[in-house]
């Protein structure tokens, strides 16, 4: 969630701001940068600069061109026009290797981790140390442990990336960027799936680094984070810089308005819920995680039609396994799941879809989209074989395209066309595609895991309104989010999960932030 009025205004802290008495020592200087993909003008004549030791935030709607901009700084893409000077050197940045050599480090929005390798192996990739010609893996593990200790981001050095939930992958990706000594650190949405505590830790780390002379370019959609750490903010809209402000001179509302070009409602407005019949019933559910340990352990919960039930919990307490079990992606070890009275405990993902579950998965890249398929096809991934998208064995491309175009407009997806491959979309727009697909077929149960991950404030507002609207039309909604603010403001009822079971359940009206925080930490 974004800065709701109740969040403390971190921007008020002063210490950080004094750093801005900059030395006039430009670490990064971009002049007249433009970049197009076919007809999409991702960056138009962008000029900006970053001083040594300065934290600069890039804000902008999904598809505004933030990632494209930083990818060019890191040598991943070449600008069409304009120059990027690093420490006064305007030689083109040939590739990431060149960027690394010139002191740039980057954390990527689309994680750059090798799935079949361990955390330690990923951490040292590209700057390995060897002992007698042999990889020093023990040293790598040690490095991971030290980094994770130092920055308060817990990861197991021997875990394989593909077994990790996105939140942990995010931590690895950040630690990887921090593992090399750099002058300019680029962080592309590092906090998208971090827990609030982890986010705060990271913000502290950023301040320390900046105090030590590292410059940071920070991309995020969360305005409170911007206000908490940034010295200056650039706002991008449709590829152009539309504003530049000192963080001290603005607030969340001001930033949101600059980004979207209109006032944004930062609160969720909704009527009292009118709960109906039980839709989802989960009883004594036991689900094993990838290491065959019970991650969900005796979970019981009921979600009724017309209500939003939020599952609050520290990541890694079984949320992922719970959602996967309900969606049919992970067979439970024990217990019962029913949807409108029908037993779906052993159903596969297709069957749960047919039964009426819409599932917004937490990991959109892996479980939400097929990158090489067009957007239109992605919009019907779960029912490409149903009417009107197919007649028997034959697909109806016309219907698929029309459906895609309609959802495109409705959910304000920004991309070249519905025929563009999903991989070419910006992160937040990918998320919108998944949300659009799962909400558009009228699910009986909408199960949303991190539904607004990486989505800009304007679109968060929109997605929240759509979730509430679905509820009002009688859908049951199960919301799982690492954003406590989102759970608090959107839910009608809150279930706190700890150690794989519900430790407390309460109407959202009675929920108290600190109380929930305590329960989440296992204090009950």
């Amino acid at each position: 969630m974004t800065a709701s009025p109740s969040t403390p205004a971190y921007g008020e802290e002063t210490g950080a701001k004094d750093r801005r008495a900059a030395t006039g020592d430009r670490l990064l200087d971009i002049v007249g940068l433009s970049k197009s993909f076919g007809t999409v003008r991702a960056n138009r004549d962008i000029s900006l600069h970053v001083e040594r030791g300065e934290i600069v935030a890039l804000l902008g709607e999904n598809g505004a061109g933030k990632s494209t901009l930083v990818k060019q700084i890191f040598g991943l893409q070449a600008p069409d026009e304009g120059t990027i000077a690093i420490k006064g050197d305007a030689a083109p940045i040939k590739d990431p290797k060149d960027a690394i050599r010139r002191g740039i480090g980057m954390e990527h929005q689309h994680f750059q981790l090798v799935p079949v390798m361990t955390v330690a192996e990923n951490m040292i990739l590209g700057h390995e140390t060897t002992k007698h010609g042999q990889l020093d893996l023990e040293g790598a593990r040690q490095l991971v442990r030290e980094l994770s200790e130092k920055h308060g981001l817990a990861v197991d050095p021997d875990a394989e990336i593909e077994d990790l939930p996105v939140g942990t992958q995010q931590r690895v990706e950040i630690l990887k960027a921090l593992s090399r000594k750099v002058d300019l650190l680029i962080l592309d949405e590092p906090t998208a799936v971090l827990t609030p505590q982890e986010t705060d830790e990271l913000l502290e780390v950023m301040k320390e680094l900046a105090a030590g002379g590292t410059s940071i370019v920070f991309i995020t959609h969360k305005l409170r984070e911007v206000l908490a750490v940034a010295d200056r903010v650039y706002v991008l809209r449709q590829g152009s810089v539309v504003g530049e402000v000192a963080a001290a001179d603005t607030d969340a509302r001001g930033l949101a308005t600059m980004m979207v070009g209109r006032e944004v409602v930062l609160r969720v407005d909704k009527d009292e819920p009118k709960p109906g019949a039980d839709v989802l019933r989960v009883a004594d559910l036991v689900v094993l995680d990838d290491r065959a340990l019970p991650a969900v352990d005796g979970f019981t919960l009921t979600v009724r039609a017309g209500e939003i039930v939020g599952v609050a919990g520290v990541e890694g307490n079984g949320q992922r396994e719970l959602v996967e079990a309900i969606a049919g992606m992970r067979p439970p070890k024990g217990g019962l799941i029913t949807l409108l009275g029908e037993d779906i405990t052993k159903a596969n993902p297709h069957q749960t879809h047919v039964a009426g579950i819409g599932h917004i998965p937490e990991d959109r890249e892996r479980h939400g989209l097929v990158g090489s398929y067009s957007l239109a096809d992605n919009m019907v991934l779960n029912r490409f074989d149903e009417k009107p998208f197919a007649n028997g064995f034959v697909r109806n491309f016309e219907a698929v395209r029309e459906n895609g175009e309609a959802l495109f407009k409705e959910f304000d997806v920004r991309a070249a066309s519905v025929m563009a491959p999903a991989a070419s979309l910006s992160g937040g727009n990918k998320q919108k595609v998944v949300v659009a697909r799962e909400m558009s077929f009228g699910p009986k149960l909408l199960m949303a895991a991190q539904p607004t991950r990486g989505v800009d404030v304007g679109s968060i507002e929109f997605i929240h309104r759509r979730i509430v609207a679905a509820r009002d039309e009688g859908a049951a909604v199960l919301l799982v989010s690492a954003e406590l603010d989102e759970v608090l403001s959107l839910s009608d009822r809150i279930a706190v999960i700890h150690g794989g079971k519900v430790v407390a359940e309460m109407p959202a009206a009675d929920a108290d932030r600190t109380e929930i925080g305590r329960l989440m930490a296992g204090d009950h």
Partner: protein
Amino acid sequence: MAWFSRNRSVTLTAVAIIVAAYVFYAINQRVAVSMIDFAWSFAVPLVLAACVGVMGERSGVINIGIEGQMLVGAFSGFFTAAATQSLWAGVIAGVLSGMLMGAFLAWTTVKWQMDQIIAGVVINIIATGLTSFYYKSGQSLTHVMPNIDIPLLSKIPLIGPVFFEGGPIALTTLVIVAILHFALFRTRWGLRTRAVGEYPSAADTAGINVIAMRLLNVTIAGGLAGLAGAYLSMEATPTFERGMTAGRGFLALAIMIFGAWRPLRAFAAALFFGFTSALASQLQASNIVSLPQQFINLLPYVLTLVVLAAAAGRVRPPAAAGQPFVKGEGS
């Protein structure tokens, strides 16, 4: 311990096979040695060729031109040896010509992003064409590569006479498998190679030159294919014949898959395949069972498939094998 629990079934299978081999040896020393010796000579080119496949696919390039690369190696090795009367010159020529074919695959697919399957087919066609066109009959070598005895090691019962007493290429193959396996899983080069074959954009963003890694690995691998060819025309037999690789390059790809893209397992798979082939020919010769010959010929394939499927479980190819790397995409 962690290693053992991860590799339990493979390790147990290996131990079982070794025990079985020694039991067999205890029962009939002569037959055991001769069968396993046959298995190893059969396996040598397969092992080398499977290593070619492993090096390519581990770095993201599918090589179905191994057959052609071997054929060219066998051809140029043999005729160089015949012309110079030096087997060593022949071997060097074989390896170099293999590398040339490797470089062809590397540059067409990695640099110019030609389809990898098509490039492999082109290699096979060119190889068959060239070696048939320039083939001259009547040439022969006076002898094959000399046998070498490794002191001490060759005295080990069963294993000694089979593996540590033989031609230089067979002996080198043992070393190559061990080095490649170690390099792939324990060295910087290996980590980078695997990253490039699994998720090239992650390697790229870590500052690794994906294109250079692929060019290098595919070219070096070509040299191994050339060596496998040299084995056929100068160590196993002193002759070159048209199409003498007889599908071994393709069989090697199957061995690579059976071996889960790991050199040591591929070695074991090739050896097992060789052994079942020896078994099949024994059965045929001895007339113990009266099965149609076609079924007996099937035996090696079926047994290898069953044993390896049981031992290895589910394996996955390197994720990026077959896909060209284009900068700036997918990141």
